């Protein structure tokens, strides 16, 4: 008994697919046209193509463009710091901790309170660096505490429920924290005390020279590290035996590269990546004409980018090089097996939240330095954008989170003037936030796993 068979002719491309292709094509064309219009307007604002959509085209000066890029990158590095928290929690627990933006806000808030008190006591002016350290430490502690407490109260009991349930819970947590902070501290916007002159002055920095310096430091550090590791490896042959990168590559020098990488304690791809970055830095530093790489940057922005880079490096070390980090990766891959291997899963999850909270706390202080203002909703949009950054970079992938943050920050700051204004859209700065979400949609339309690929456990990939 086989009932009526209604065999439809085979349709390989569904309507939805066609529609998606259409969306892709339209979006890409708009971007390309916008960019072409921008180029046209840069060449000559009176160019008919530029005039076509935007009769008032003026064109951007190089300095304006650099300014946009720099503010985008500094804001992006903050997104990156917050994104790390999303990414790590997603990697380990497989859910979006919607309240992570609030952890960031709590950091910025406590930073404000501390700095305000220090300001009132006169220390902020007299001893800025010490004050800033205290402020940062307190912000980190508060953020970490908030992250850990929310995990304990709201997420731990839901460890084994369907993945949307903790997400919904975290939305509730987010609203709760926002409004509790508003109740406690009032709805007014709070301003950080004035920063010292030397931090806020605009300096002109020759990035070309900076790149060369970084390249030099990399070489020296690498050599020192190689020498030190080489020594210690001889002393203890069993060290890292399990982590030897076994990549007998096709090249005859492959083995040599492998050995170098092993001695440095990194994988071969990472070594290749480092070397290419090094070469790129040198090329940029030497070949690009000096004027192009001279940027006018405020000290705050330099600080923000540097601190973000250092924190990122620290986190990388923690995750890739320490026992705790290894346990974290194991828990991310499979909680049950990790528990069987003697890892205290609860502790590792708490550590994950704590580390995410620390990064958010640092991000909060950087926000305070950069914008000097904070209120109870400060965490909401940066939080969602940071999540966007994490997705753009490939969730679970830490380098990706940082790169995604930088990408998103600069896109958000550059795109309105470069892609949208040339198309004759008025008031483009209002659409800054829309750009961030559009980037998210675009990236997921083209690469559902993010730009740099996801790192998820088997079950989360499904």
């Amino acid at each position, binding site marked *: 008994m086989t009932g009526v068979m209604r065999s439809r002719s085979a349709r390989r491309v569904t309507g939805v697919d066609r529609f998606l292709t259409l969306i892709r094509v339209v979006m890409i064309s708009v971007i390309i046209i916008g960019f072409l219009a921008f180029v046209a307007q840069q060449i000559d604002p009176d160019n008919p193509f530029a005039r076509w959509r935007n009769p008032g085209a003026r064109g951007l000066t190089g300095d304006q463009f650099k300014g946009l890029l720099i503010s985008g990158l500094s804001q992006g590095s903050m997104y990156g710091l917050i994104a790390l928290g999303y990414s790590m929690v997603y990697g380990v627990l497989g*859910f979006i901790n919607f309240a992570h933006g609030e952890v960031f806000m709590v950091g910025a808030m406590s930073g404000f309170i501390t700095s305000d008190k220090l300001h009132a006591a006169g220390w902020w002016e007299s001893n800025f660096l010490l004050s800033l350290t205290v402020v940062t430490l307190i912000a980190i502690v508060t953020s970490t505490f908030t992250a850990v407490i929310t995990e304990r109260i709201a997420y731990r009991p839901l460890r084994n429920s369907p993945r949307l349930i903790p997400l*919904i819970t975290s939305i509730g947590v987010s609203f709760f924290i926002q409004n*509790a902070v508003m109740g*406690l501290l009032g709805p007014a916007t709070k301003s950080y005390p004035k920063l010292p002159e030397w931090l806020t002055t605009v300096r002109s920095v020759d990035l070309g020279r900076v790149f060369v310096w970084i390249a030099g430091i990399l070489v020296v550090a690498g050599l020192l590290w190689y020498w030190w590791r080489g020594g210690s490896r001889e002393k203890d042959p069993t060290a890292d035996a399990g982590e030897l990168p076994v990549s007998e590559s096709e090249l005859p020098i492959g083995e040599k590269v492998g050995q170098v990488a092993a001695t440095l304690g990194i994988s071969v791809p990472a070594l290749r990546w480092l070397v290419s970055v090094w070469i790129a830095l040198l090329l940029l530093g030497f070949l690009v004409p000096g004027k192009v790489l001279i940027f006018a940057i405020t000290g705050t922005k330099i600080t923000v980018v540097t601190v973000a880079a250092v924190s990122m490096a620290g986190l990388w070390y923690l995750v890739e090089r320490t026992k705790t980090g290894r346990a974290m990766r194991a828990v991310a891959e499979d909680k049950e097996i990790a528990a069987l291997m003697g890892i205290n899963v609860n502790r590792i999850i708490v550590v994950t939240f704590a580390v995410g909270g620390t990064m958010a706390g640092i991000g909060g202080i950087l926000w305070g330095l950069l914008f000097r203002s904070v209120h109870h909703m400060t965490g909401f949009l940066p939080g969602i954008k940071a999540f966007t950054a994490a997705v753009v970079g490939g969730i679970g992938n830490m380098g990706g989170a940082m790169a995604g943050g930088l990408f998103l920050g600069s896109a958000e700051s550059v795109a309105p003037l470069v892609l949208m204004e040339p198309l004759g859209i008025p008031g483009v700065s*209002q659409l800054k936030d829309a750009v*961030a*979400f559009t980037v998210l949609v675009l990236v997921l339309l083209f690469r*559902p796993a993010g730009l740099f690929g996801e790192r998820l456990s088997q079950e989360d990939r499904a």
Partner: protein
Amino acid sequence: MTATLAPSGSSVALDWRRALLWGGICALSLVSVSLIGLPVGMNKRILIEPVLSLGYLFLLWIPLVFGYVATTVVVLEGVEARKSGVADLLAGLTAGLMGGIGLTLLMVGLDTVNIRKPLVNWSPQLFRLLTFERGLEFGIPVWLGICAGLGLVGAVLHQLPAVARRVMSWVLFGVMAVAILEAVIDDLAEGFHLEWLTDALYYKKGGTEGLTVTSAVVLALVLAALPVVTGGRVKAAVDHYRDAPSEDRRRTSLVLFGAIAVACVGLPMILGGIVNELLANVGLFLLLALGLNIVVGLAGLLDLGYVAFFAVGGYTTSVLTSSNSPFFAPEWHFGIALLFVVVMAAVAGLLIGAPVIRMRGDYLAIVTLGFGEIVRLLFLSDWLKPYFGGSQGITKVNPVDIGPFKVQGSDPRSVFYLVLFFCALAIYVSWRLQGSRLGRAWMATREDEQVAEAMGINTVNAKLMAFVVGATMAAFSGAVLAAKVGSVFPKSFEILVSIIILVVVIVGGMGNIAGVMVGSLVLIGILGGPRQPGLLQEFQSYKLLIYGALLVFMMLKRPEGLVPSARRSRELHQDEYLQDAWLGDEAETEGDQGAPS
């Protein structure tokens, strides 16, 4: 939390650590609640004149609950329950007392230091409220006494038989409900010409002033007597209904729904403007919630940008019916505009749905959230200002003209009837779809998308249809909003709306129409919508705090909602279901859910 299992019978020593832990949390909660500003902010609302205001209520329930919680012992199935005794009372007392100590410290702090700079509620008002305006000497002993007493009461609740506990909570909630619902009851009484009743019940000296002490006591007695009079017949009826074969249950449900429908049509006639306004808001959000219930509850798609469809409905209606639409103002009739609302909602549903439909559930949530924001930002932008009016939006939306009636904001009753019509439609549609081929396809997709596809379901289409149906309901709600307010502007369409509707659906009971109805009645009616005040207008600034807390609480303690659908509660309590079935010797059961592979 350690649940000590002691030999049964013997009175156990006090578990100090546990009592102190809960006591500490109790103190912390009391202090935080005070500093967040709940007591002062709501002190104006009197529940029982002159002894209890809503503000004090917010402090009083805390030691009571913690006294109860501190003595709750997890009893495992099959393990003999441990006898509770004096130790438990002591634990409750300790927890309460520590709460009192917390408040004492707060009062002393308020008196000695001034840290109002960051903490806005570190104020003389709070001090006066806590000390009953009589200074520390009075405040400290009183609060210590009250908290310890309430903690003790909480602990005693455990010692009482379950029946007594139920009666007590019934009385407590009943009295509070009557006090909180004063405006509604007043209004109703007026409609039925029962003013004498409310005059006796309430203090009434201009505005809502709460019950009098005498009436509260009498009411409590009456409420306590009720269960005795009915003698468990209500519970029996409910049980009967629950156990009835599905045919009977259906009939009863229909009768119930009919009764509710009659009440919905009849009551507004005799209700006053304020309550009708409340009901109209409830209806507006019920309509939204019903739509989201289809998307989230049935199809399992967590759409956080749901507000976009609300906006699309509102703006479409405004553009087509307003005389003031900047770009295109045909000034059509609402009915004709509705046709376009449906079309635009479907288009928006497909436009937003198609890109996200293949994404993982949680990505879908965030991307839809992004879409919701994009839509609002677009309506707000200078770019589209020539079409949609930017931040001022579109004003002068014409009232809806239905023969002799006119639906407009100044006449909330008419708005309510309009909303009622749409809600009835949405309920019918949800109900019919749930039990149809499409509804089953949604359920299967929610359960296991891959398998659903392998079983011949075009999940992409099914999900898109859920999006479109949900979008249409939201758009209708937007249309009514436009007619009601007479204008639309982007501020009405913030992400907050999506979240609040989500809370309504979850608190009510995901996937259950009755649950969604209860959810919107309770939440929107009492707390209010994102921009609409509820019955307790004092909540306005704390509404979102409470929504957030409620969402977390429900997800942790009762994820199936207040009125769960049978399916959903089975799903969330599979173990218990299996256990019951096993005890009832009805189903075969097996511990292992997973097959060896």
